[in-house]
């Protein structure tokens, strides 16, 4: 399920990233930004689906805005112009409204438009620097060149009735396809405007700090030999499962996990069904305390297959 090219070296990944790949199929691409303070921070490249959803939301908003401007103007003109003029005016207002919309919000909301904010996306500088106004303006006006002006040309192209192949329209269509292909063929999923402006779109959902799962006092106790059965990766998978909302499905999974753990560590005392969660939480606490202490002593244990031998 996980694609190897996304992971430089599987074993060297931090446990929390491996857990993310375990649960989400490892689709996320990451880049590292080193802050001026010297601490590397990981950013996640937004994926195509997220960007499409964000764009669709923005599209709906600015289309509505455009019509809000356009309909009074059209009413003012009346039927004087004919359909072609009406389309021209619509294109013009579309041009104005959408560019002001994107540029305003990306400047005012630190690289997010309403659509991007809903989905949890941000535009950031590719090198990790500040997002400067000229980059925002460049990346948005390039969208015109990439998409809307070619589309406008294609839409208006219907009037030339030659029957022959129009090289202009062919070139326009080819250009449109090329623009759409750019985000697919580069690593950071940058579209043409991002390449030119030196920006990228990252996924930055708001995360919540949940309460610590660690128990204050343990009902069950485990020996170091039992705790040595697992590593950080398994610990975090367990954490993820314990944090899931309670429902019959979760309960079933936890039961299975509990059985597996009991077999692995040779837990002999019988466990009643009601005790499963308490047992798992205690095990999680003891395991985390054990692994964190080992890690402090320089004996970190990424998963159950690797790490220091049991003889330690």
């Amino acid at each position, binding site marked *: 399920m996980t694609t190897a090219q996304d992971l430089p070296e599987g074993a060297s990944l931090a446990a929390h990233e491996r857990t993310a790949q375990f649960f989400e199929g490892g689709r996320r691409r990451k880049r590292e930004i080193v802050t001026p303070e010297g601490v590397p921070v990981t*950013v996640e490249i937004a994926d195509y689906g997220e960007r499409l959803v964000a764009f669709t939301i923005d599209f709906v908003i600015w289309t509505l805005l455009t019509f809000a401007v356009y309909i009074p103007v059209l009413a003012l003109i009346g039927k004087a112009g004919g359909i072609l003029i009406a389309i021209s005016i619509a294109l*013009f207002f579309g041009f104005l409204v959408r560019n002001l919309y994107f540029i305003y919000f990306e400047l005012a909301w630190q690289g997010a438009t309403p659509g991007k904010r809903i989905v949890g996306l941000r535009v950031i500088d590719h090198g990790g620097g*500040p997002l*400067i106004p000229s980059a*925002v*303006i460049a990346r948005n006006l390039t969208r015109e060149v990439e998409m809307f002006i070619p589309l*406008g040309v294609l839409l208006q192209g219907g009037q030339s009735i030659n029957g022959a192949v129009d090289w202009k329209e062919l070139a326009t269509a080819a250009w449109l396809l090329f623009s759409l292909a750019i985000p697919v063929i580069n690593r950071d999923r940058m579209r043409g405007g991002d390449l030119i402006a030196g920006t990228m779109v990252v996924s930055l959902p708001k995360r919540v700090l949940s309460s610590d799962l660690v128990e204050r006092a343990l009902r069950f106790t485990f020996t170091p030999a039992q705790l040595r059965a697992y590593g950080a990766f398994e610990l975090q998978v367990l954490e993820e499962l314990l944090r899931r909302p309670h429902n019959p499905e979760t309960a079933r999974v936890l039961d299975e996990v509990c059985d597996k753990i009991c077999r692995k560590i040779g837990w002999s005392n019988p466990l009643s069904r009601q005790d499963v969660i308490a047992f798992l939480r205690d095990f999680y606490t003891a395991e985390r305390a054990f692994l964190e202490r080992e890690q402090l002593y320089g004996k970190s244990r990424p998963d159950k297959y690797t790490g220091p031998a049991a003889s330690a």
Partner: protein
Amino acid sequence: MTQTADAIGERLIANPELDVAPGAGRPKLVLKSREFRNGREQGWRELDELVRRVERRGVRSLSLDELQRLPILYRAALSSLAVARTIALDRNLLLYLENLALRAYLAVYGPRLSPGAGLRAFFVHDLPAAVRAARWHILVATLALLVGVAVGFILTVQDEAWFSSFMPAAMAGGRGPSSTAASLRDKELFAPWPGAVEAFGVFANVLFSHNTLVGLMCFGLGLAAGIPTLMLTTYQGLGLGAFVALHYNRDLTIECLGWLSIHGTTELGALILLSAGGLVIADKILFPGRYSRIENLALHGRQAALMGVGGILMLFVAGILEGGFRQLVQSTSLRFAIGLGVGALWLIYFSRCGRGARR
């Protein structure tokens, strides 16, 4: 709660062997990561709140006190992240801190300017500066256009059959070797103003039509080492030269130039700017210096993009002039005055604006 945890922590530091003593009733155990979290969580939550407000309403929404707290809390969160990576195995905590540190980083080092000030800085400073930096490319693009105009003019003056080769039929609009001086004068140069709605149609047509497309192709084809850019620019010049020659042969040169100049100075300026932008791209690809070609393009792409933006803006103005003013102003001398005046304004804007007192 923090105090009890600290008390337990001290006891355990005094006697670490107590940590996970197996058997022996119900041992209390302490985790470094929990202690660590208890001591710092309040600061994270405070930072989280500040960052959330900056994201919603900008840096200005913070009070002076909060503004001073922000970088302090940010550095504390960064150090928390660095520590947590080495001591904590709590996945939720690690992900939260990564996220918080990144958001705070973007808030602290984010743009300082309000949208209005950003736009002003862009137009007053960034755009003209980028254009000035490409003066050699602009010169080359202008020469390519002038060569085209000269060749197109000379050839068509001698033999009007060239006109149809240089000017696509769709663009010629019925003009050609068979046009008479009277028809050119009345139907084109001094045709009556068609009314606001029609004029607007012309305007929008300019924006989404041939010239825009050619300009953008000149720009985009810079990726193909710039030769197509120069060829296309010269070809545009050929058409223009042929157009003038057609009028020259009918003694309408001055009127024709006036008719062209009112929007032509802006439109040709846009074409030159877009071609020059294409040449900048070609230049960065052909002569990457000590970077790889792609790196160099990314490094300097913004300059080319700014020139493209400038070109699009000029096309916009050209559309307004062509649709709104060309047929409204019926006097040739006034047309010259407007065209040359606007051209001079562009020249002053791009060469002087944002330069300050320094030459």
